[in-house]
């Protein structure tokens, strides 16, 4: 794997940059208490103080430290996105395997349902679910999970369809392996790499959707630090020149989405080359 990254040139560089971003933000999310200089939810200075040596990213409209909120905000978005992705994978991957392997009517019905959800604008579906469930980390995670189940389903199903026709699966069947054994012992290991690619690209997308939901006020409630939510709160004063409560959380959203995007894109390119 490492050798592959090193020999991949530009693609390898993308993977490395992506990894650096993702690991840094994860570090920030895990050790928020040690990194943030102030409490993110209590006012610690005057309102809308511009960035200075005391507050490196300034303070927001009620005097909270923007940098501390950015640090703790990484925890909120990472928790929501990783939780939602775990749910999507836990449902989407087994269903995709089942559908692709079993075929027939079940496959047709499942595919039709998944394709329909896939065709629906993701953010709008998430908005509807989030509006009904109410705010909170778990509810937001569920709203996002529903949106991304079809992504995993479609990818896994497609892979299984081609894998089940291959010789090694036929051989396994010939020596009398049961369906469940073929799925987990023979097919699943071949899915791991592509799941990693889809995971990265999908998380990049989920980050933007989470940020969108919280920008619309449907994800977390005040005073929880959250990048999209803080961006929304800063919007009111933004055009009068108070740029710091908006610019920093926004840059973080983009950076994190880019990190996963680069990672997925790089892995995808390397996989394509290996296949060739």
């Amino acid at each position: 794997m490492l050798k592959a990254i090193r020999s991949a040139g530009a693609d390898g560089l993308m993977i490395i940059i992506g990894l650096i971003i993702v690991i840094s933000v994860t570090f920030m999310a895990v050790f928020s208490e040690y990194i943030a200089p102030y409490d993110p939810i209590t006012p610690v200075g005057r309102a809308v103080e511009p960035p200075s040596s005391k507050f490196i990213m300034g303070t927001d409209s009620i005097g909270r430290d923007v940098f501390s909120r950015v640090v703790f905000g990484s925890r909120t978005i990472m928790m929501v996105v990783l939780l939602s992705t775990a749910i999507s994978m836990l449902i989407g991957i087994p269903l995709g395997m089942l559908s692709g392997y079993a075929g027939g009517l079940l496959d047709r019905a499942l595919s039709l349902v998944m394709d329909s959800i896939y065709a629906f604008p993701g953010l709008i579906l998430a908005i509807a679910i989030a509006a009904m469930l109410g705010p909170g980390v778990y509810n937001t995670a569920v709203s996002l999970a529903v949106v991304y189940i079809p992504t995993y389903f479609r990818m896994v199903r497609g892979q299984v369809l081609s894998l089940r026709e291959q010789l090694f699966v036929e051989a396994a069947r010939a020596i009398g392996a049961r369906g469940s054994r073929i799925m987990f012992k023979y097919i699943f290991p071949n899915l791991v790499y592509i799941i990693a690619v889809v995971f990265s690209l999908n998380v990049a997308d989920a980050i933007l959707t989470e940020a969108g939901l919280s920008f619309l006020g449907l994800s977390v409630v005040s005073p929880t630090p959250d990048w999209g939510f803080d961006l929304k709160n800063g919007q009111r004063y933004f055009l009068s020149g108070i740029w710091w409560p908006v610019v920093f959380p926004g840059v973080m959203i983009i950076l994190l989405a880019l990190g996963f995007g680069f990672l997925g894109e790089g892995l995808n390119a390397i996989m394509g080359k290996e296949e060739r």
Partner: protein
Amino acid sequence: MTSLKAYIATRIVLTIPMILILLTLVFFVMRVLPGNPVIAIVGMKASPKYIAELEHQLGLDKPLWQQYLDYLGKLIQGDLGTSMIWGRRPVIAEIMDHFPATLELTICGFLVSIIIGIATGMIAGVKSGGKVDFSMRIYSIVAYSLFIPWFGMMLQLVFGVWLKILPVGGRIDPLLEPRHITGLYIIDSILTLNFDSLVNALEHLALPSLTLGIVLSGIYTRLVRSSLMEVFSQDFMRACRARGLKTSSILFRHGLKNALIPILTMMGLQFALLLAGAVLTETTFSWPGMGTFLMERIEYRDFTTVQGTIAFYALFVALVSLVVDLIYAYVDPRIRY
């Protein structure tokens, strides 16, 4: 031509299950998920009697299957219910007040994204493998990662506050609003020969369309690039070159034209992205479209309108994907057989 007709008929029939599934999904989200819509409307503190009354009024006290049939039956007749606040107007009328604004924004955003996408995709596809190609790949990832509200606000700051050349929000100056014919201000102002309105409407459209268009252009960069490379590797391209056609002719008349056909199929799905992106663009630019409307009604807990609007989105998406497929079949005869 008969085969095209047969294709259209099959495709329309195949749209019905998709619509049914989407509407069922909407029903499921709005009624079956935990969370009582009535409590969502009136809040936890309302008296049980009032809650029961409202439940009865909304038909929520009926068995679920009956609610489901009522819901589908009304939808077939084009009835999305009536709003629960203010004038209690039919939801469909309220939607139609806001739909043209969204349509105008998505069409313009689409044009921006496809123009930038084709240009960058062609640059990348022609010089594939090199530094230019790689920077276009980076462009496509970065563009897609630009968080719409953030990017929109940056454009507002640069063009609205610093350069002061474009308005930062709204759809048109209220005094210049053209007479409503289609609801699309650009078309209305052209039809009424009202050029002040036209210019004003275009100025207001500029930043939202650029925001939406640039963010989504990265997808087209990628699609055009890979499609163009695919076409270039085919035999007829070698034949074109062997016959000594001019590079521009090879690129545009033979290359691009064939490369764009597969991209058509993707447009149905891209359209869903446009609609989703439009919600964020609209709320950033106070654009009075469906997205702003939906968010406003969620805030007011206008349950029937929210449900109706989401159902409308579902119908609209199904319709667009049908139309895209039909255009595709018309353009590429291979599909029909």
